[in-house]
């Protein structure tokens, strides 16, 4: 049974145009997000070029295990998300919902590991302030950026998990037809959050660590 009639929204003249429109819209939003994270990457680049030794010392303290686990989790979640999108094109409702749920689970696991990693960092007093253990003082710049970059990324991921969850519920309750273009937007956002981690990971965990 096709529900194309209900997938179409005002003011779109037809579903194909709507699908393309959602794509245009989400990619424009991704462009703004690139600039958002880009400002952080610029700060990192500036300070790393100014204080390479401090960044080497500071970067040696990040938890490579947690960072790598999180990379694996997010990459896998992108696989499940891709399967969900493909299944939606074939009208396979149950597969879509299951894959979205798996994506959520993997994202939640990321946040769990992140929480464990943060407590490990705090146990080592790696929060810039009076008790910061490393010298020289510029090591605090690396760690200041670490907290902001991973924190902002985690917030984006949490929002993504929420959106994926709500979307999966809506699909499961057949409030939206499976052909709805909205899944493109959700998936593109998710892949973007994954891509940010792919860039963050080497910058924070692999630099000067051989």
């Amino acid at each position, binding site marked *: 049974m096709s529900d194309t009639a209900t997938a179409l929204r005002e003011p779109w003249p037809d579903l194909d145009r709507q699908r393309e429109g959602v794509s245009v819209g989400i990619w424009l939003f991704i462009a703004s*997000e690139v600039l958002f994270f880009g*400002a952080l990457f610029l700060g990192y680049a500036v300070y790393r070029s*100014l204080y390479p030794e401090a960044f080497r010392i500071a970067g040696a303290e990040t938890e490579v295990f947690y960072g790598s686990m999180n990379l694996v989790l997010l990459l896998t979640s992108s696989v499940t998300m891709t399967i969900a999108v493909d299944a939606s094109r074939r009208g396979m409702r149950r597969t879509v919902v299951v894959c979205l749920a798996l994506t959520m689970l993997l994202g939640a696991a990321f946040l769990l590991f992140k929480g464990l990693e943060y407590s490990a960092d705090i146990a080592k007093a790696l929060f810039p302030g009076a008790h910061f253990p490393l010298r020289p003082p510029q090591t605090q710049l690396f760690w200041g950026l670490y907290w902001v970059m991973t924190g902002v990324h985690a917030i984006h991921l949490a929002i993504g998990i929420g959106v994926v969850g709500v979307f999966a519920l809506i699909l499961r309750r057949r409030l939206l037809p499976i052909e709805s273009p909205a899944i493109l937007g959700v998936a593109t956002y998710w892949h973007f959050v994954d891509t940010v981690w792919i860039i963050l990971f080497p910058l924070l965990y692999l630099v000067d660590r051989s």
Partner: protein
Amino acid sequence: MTDAAIADAAVDLPGASYLEAGHTLLSWLTTTDHKRIAILYAISITFFFFIGGIAIGLVRLELMSPRGLFLTSDAYNRLFSLHGIIMVWFFLVPSIPATMGNFLLPLMIGAHDVAFPRLNLLSWYLYVFGAAFTLYALIAGGVDTGWTFYTPLSTNYATGYVIAAAAGVFVVGFSSIATGVNFMATAHMLRAPGMTWFRLPLFVWAMYTVSMVMVLATPVLAMSLLLVIAERALGLPIFDAARGGDPVLFQHLFWFYSHPAVYIMILPAMGVVSEVIPCFARRTIFGYAFMVYALIAIAVIGFMVWGHHMFVAGQSPFANLVFSFLSFVVAVPSAIKVFNWTATLHRAEITFEAPMLYALGFVGLFTIGGLTGLFLASVPIDIHATDTYFVIAHFHFVMVGGTVSAYMAGLHFWWPKLTGRMYSEAWARFAAITTFLGFNATFLPQFVMGWNGMPRRYHYYPDVFQAWHVMSSVGALILAVAYVLPLIYFGWSLIYGRRAGANPWNATGLEWQTSSPPPKENFRRLPRIDAGPYAYHESAQPPTAGDGTPSPPSPTPLPNPPPRAGEGRGG
């Protein structure tokens, strides 16, 4: 049937105006109709315009005496900061795009609505949420950092509600981004059949280019404010010199947004002027293609000049050279636009309705503002004039003489379309002229005293500047009257104004091919589009104020006829 039931039944008739489609407050607060969202924005930004205006009114009053009159210096600092923050982010940035852009973009391209109507409503709620946040911060005590939030004052030393104010601006930034995404997707995907890119009115091009700037620049502001919040609230060193941070990095991040932000303010204004001048000169715009390229060039090159706000911040002379050169380059497309508006007036049949008065005022005042910007783009001159009233005068000429004039031009031009009523032309012309005179009286003295050394943001000043300050403050009073007048005659017109026809100005453009006010779905029957905009040459009728009889909407804009001898005279 009760009256209420009859009224509600009218909603179901095809083509009930968008104002009648639902009378409850909830129907307004949950609307996804771009026209209603435009009205919601208009009310919100007008409220903030007057808050920001009252703040600076108090400042100008205080400045009539070199040692102040009734404010502490701390209160003075907080008032000018309030003025800047409110006027930039809660009035100027949303002004034309969120009101006229929202209302007119779908109409001008022949669409039923913007691409993502619910995102549109969300953008208004983000605005309101951010505005409420900032307003709370500013009323609870405010900030004294200026609207520029420079570090380390904002991160380390400022008392006051820096975090709350920055958070409010952070939130309202996402309103901008949402609007930008929506407009670009709308322009790409929802143009009616026959409406090709180069048949679009320049207002649509202006909305498109401004959206590009909003989407790409605003996130950098968001991040720079987030970093200030992180440093101030959590002690995370980003700009802290004691731990190797660089306060100038904040300035780079801040101005990377805030320079394109001024183009966010001027591009829509240019779009409005490009609609008004052809109509009241009865001439097609001169050089349409170059007007388009100029909009794009301003938007793109505008991203490359931010360092001209930092000539004295310790940048290398090489950086100064590059930013100075690019700042000169960005003036070229703006100048092309001024030349083309002027050329549009050549041998034209000009009439001086209020929209035209404001638009012509824009051209003159923007030229002065732009020229003084060029002076400031020259490094040696800027070293003399930076942080003086010369800079204040420059940016008020472009933002107030420019953008606010254009906003008023557009408000008057499209008022009949939005409301179905005509305003009082006599009072509107009086207000326009008073605005022009009051504006010049306020800001011309500021050029003089700035050049002679009067610093900006100073509470106390040397006696020698008092005469100029008094002149400026009296001008500000005149300007205030001129801004209050429209509230009165527009409000009056809503109740007693003559009903406007579909096209009271005899203008071209799709928005005039539907009733005033438009039905909820915009067009009862979409006109066929097979010609470009501004087909004024062959329009024999001059603009007339609607006399209440609805003019029949013409189905298609007429194509340009071959030129005949004596064409355009004595129509």
